[in-house]
Structure formats: C-alpha cells, structure tokens
C-alpha cells in the first residue's frame, strides 16, 4: 500500500482516477489548483487505486492523503 500525499495546501480541481483503476508510475491521479497553477499529482508506483480520499471542489492540506495505491 502506498499513500499519495499532497505536497501543499490546494483546491482539488479534477480527479482523474476512480477506485479500482489500474495506474502506472507517472500517471496523473488528480490535478490540484493552488497559487494560480494547476498542480498535477502523479502516482509514484504502478498498481491499483484502492482509495481516493478527495473530491473535486474540496481542499487538501499539506500531507493529506489523496489516494492509496496497492
């Protein structure tokens, strides 16, 4: 299990994956919006999306878990 965490406080602009999706390293999971920029959050491992803990329009804090990959 690998937790993908947010590196900064941001709005969640787009969620691009759903639970059960297969992802490969480097895929974009969600796009955050912060400091006038789109900030893609990439998955650091290949695997299956077990959990997505954010919703579009929500807010993440630095260190919050965005998704869990198995």
């Amino acid at each position, binding site marked *: 299990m690998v937790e993908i965490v947010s590196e*900064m406080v941001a709005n969640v602009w787009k969620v691009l994956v759903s639970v059960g999706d297969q992802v490969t390293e480097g895929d974009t999971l969600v796009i955050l919006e912060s400091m006038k920029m789109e900030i893609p959050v990439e998955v650091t491992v290949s695997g299956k999306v077990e959990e997505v803990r954010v919703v579009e329009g929500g807010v993440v804090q630095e260190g919050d878990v965005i998704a869990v990959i198995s």
Partner: protein
Amino acid sequence: MADEAKAGRQATPAAGEDGPKFMPTLTYEGPSMKEKVEELREKRAQFEAMGGPERIERQRSQNKLTVRERLGLLFDDGTFMEYGLLAHHQSQSPQMQGRFTPADGCITGIGEIGGRRAAVIAYDFTVMAGSIGMVGEIKATRMRELALKERIPIVWLIDSAGARIQEAAGSTFARSGDLFREQVVMSGVIPQVAAMMGPGAAGTAYIPGLADFVPMVKGNSNMALAGPHLVKAAVGEDVSAEEMGGSEVHCKVSGVGDLEVADDQECITAVRKYLSFFPSSNLDRPPVAQTSDPLDRRCEDLIDLVPANPRKAYDMRKLVASIVDDHDFFPMKPDWAKNLVTGFARFGGRPCGIIANQPMFLGGALDVNSADKAARFVWLCDAFNIPLVFLMDCPGFLVGSQVEKQGIIRHGAKMLFAVSEATVPKITVVIRKGYGAGYYVMNGRAYEPDLLVGWPTAEISVMGPEGAVNIIFRKQIEAAPPEQQDEMRNQMIGMVRDQISPYIAAGWSFVDDLIDPAETRQVIGKALAVTESKRVERPWRKHGVLPV
C-alpha cells in the same frame, strides 16, 4: 680506532696563553650522503604507505579510493606538492603509545586543478579512521593559512571519524576550534569545497557546514554533529550514521549537501567542474571558457516547451538546458527545494549563476527552503563576481498558516536581502509569471537588474485577477443578487486580467524589452558581455543585519 674517532669528535680544550681553544672536528664516520638519501627514501615510502595494506584493502572493499588515489584524480598530473608527509603524532597519551600515524592521517598540499592552483586537506581513513590529531591539525592550519595568503581555493576531502579523542578527551579542548573561525574568515575570499567521501562526524561536520560546495558520495558519506555511538550515549537514540546523515538526508531533506554523487570518481569530477566556474579568489573574475556553441543559436524548442496557458506546468530544467552553452548545466542542490532551480552554466563561455522557478514543484511558488536555497546561492555568486541570471515564472510566495508557522517572512526576507545586496551583473528574463514579492525576489525592476526582459507570455502583477477581485470588489459582488454573483465576478476578473499585460510593463519601459523566446540565449549572452564592467558603490557599513 672507534675510541679515537669519538675522542676526535669531542672538542677538548687546549691550554694556551690566550685561554681555552677548541679543536675542530676533523673526522666524520656517520652515514654517507647517499646513505642518508636512501634513508629518506625509505622513510618517505613508509609514510606514503598510509595505514598499511590491510587497511587500504578495507578502504577499497567499501568502494572507496585511497586518499592518494583521490588526490591523483583531483590534481592535474605531476602538479601536487605535498606538505608534511613525514609528520606523525607526537602525543604522550597512553592510548597513543606504539601507534604509527603516517602524515598523521591528513594529507595536505597544493596542486593545480585545470591549470590553476588549489590547496587540499585530505583525511585518510586508513590512519586511525582519518581522525583529526594535533599534528594533523597543525598541518591543516598551515594549509588554510597558505590558501588564504595565496588567494587560492581550498578543498577538503573528508573521510574522517572526527576529533582524535585518544589524544584529547579532556579539557585541553579549551584551546581548540580555530578551524571553523578561520573558515568564516576565508568565506567569500577564497572558494571552499568540502567533498564528503566517507564519514564526517562532529569536528568534521562543521567543515562542510561552512564550506561553499558540499558534494556527497551516495552510500559512503555521512555527516552529523555526533556519530551513532555518541548519539546513543547522549540522547538514547538508536540510529545508523547513514540514516542520520547520509546523502539521502542531506541532499534531499536537510539541504546541507549540494550534490549527491555515485562514487569517488564522480565526486572528484564534480569538484573540478564546480571550481571551473570560479575565480581563484574574490579578487579575480571567473574564467571565460572556450565554446563552439554559437551565442546566436536559436532555441526553437522553447516555443513548444512552455505552455502559453499560465496555469500549466513545464520542466524549467529543460528550458535551462536549452539555452546554456553546450546544454551543460551544473546544478546546486537539485534534489532539495525543487521548486527552485539553482546552478552554474555559461553563455558564450562566460560563467553565470542561474536561479529559475520550477513550475513542476509547488507550481513554482517560493517556500521557506527555496528562499534559503536562493539566498545562499546569490551570496555565493556575488562573493565571487559570478553574474546572476534569473528566469522568472513565479506565482509568488506560498501563503497560508502552514508557511507562516515556518517563518516564511523571515526566510523570504533572506532572499530579498541577498538579491538586493548583490552587486554582480544581474539579468532577469520574465518567462511567464512575476507576481507580488515573487517578482521582487526574482530580481524585478526595483532590484537593479542590468537587463530586464520578458517573453510575450510575461504577466507581472501584484496578484492574480481572482485574488484581486476578491479583495477589490468583494462588497459589490456580495451586494448583488446571488444568481448574478458568478457572472459579475467573472466579468470583473476579465477586466482585471486585461490590466496584466507585458505590453503595459514595456509601454512604461519598466521592462527593457519583450523578446522572442527562441532568442533568450542570445539576449542573455549579450547582456553578460554588456554588463561586464559593472561597478556599484554602497554606503559604508560594518555589515547588514541578516534576517536568518
């Protein structure tokens, strides 16, 4: 015969009227000059053998070169002159009796790196774990003095357990500590490099702390104020030297290390290359290199690399690589505070320090670590007459409660301080965003750029349109019927956005020109030539009050 010779050598008073007279020594039966030279040769060989075959083998088995092999790589062939080879410990302490410490575990001398002199202090782990003994420190002190007097760089190759406590575990410590103070005196006068090629505990950890450039060999080097045994004794923590102060920690988390390198060869290559960008001292200019890369080479790839949509990220390192001579960029702290790219490169052979926002991380916003990284890099370049090139794409300083707790104002002030203070040529290219204090610290118009140009995508403003509308028109929007609020807000955002245009900044002549991105290389190269004789006078002061 032997007795006669002895008697002959002993001066015996001869009686005479003028008082006692001494007979001159008429015979000599000691070793011949040839024998003396042979004895010297043997002694030198004995000292050059370092800690002996067994310890050298252990050193090699750890994928480390010996100290002499390292020096062979560091200096141009045949240029190294060693000082203090025949030194060894003089300690009377019981723990030191019977120990032989060739060169006292610390090789010192002067050689040439790329045809220019540099001094070295290299610790030899095969001799009492490269510990700093009293004689070794006398040698190191001499080398620091010579380097400063000659105004040449000093390089430490650190592979050392720290202070040799077998010699001085008690209160004679009261007299020690000169090395760090001397390093501070040398700071900004001569370049200082501390290459971590093995352990660097305690006494040898502040050397890199005060040096300008600290490459670290992955897996073999570490630095910490105390090694694992002392940590266990002092605070009870069980931790390995690698976990506590390996290259992973210092090059990616703490920011004390500047560059993680794979092995000893790569480390020495990095030291040589780093110094190639520097003058021998702050009295000189950095050397101009030969290059076959034409300064007027157009960088058409930039047109596709950088999205016109200001919200989209791109890799700033690719932009940097595209514009510099031979696509050759020497990064400083590439794995720490990655939202800011810092490092050395050349344009038309002229060295410069590059500071560039990296939209791939934190959207290119500045935080506490990147501000520290920038401040230190600016001070480094300014001290050694290396011009600065700022590539600006900065949405501003990160905001919010988290960064305020980290002291973003204090850290941001450091960057402001360093950039304001720098009197070397400063060239700024606004690639896209230049917002708020981010525009200032990336060397905006008020910070004395010698050339300030923008791409057609440049957007300079105190804040983004959304933020501005939320502040300026908040009451008006709130007063409108709820169903009209969104439309009203969007309309006002559009109005404010129209005010953010590079042609407004250029129309006021606040930016010197707007340029074709493909000509960025040429413009920077020309600017470095144009500003070559820059001189700035500041009012006298002892020193500023640094916001650290």
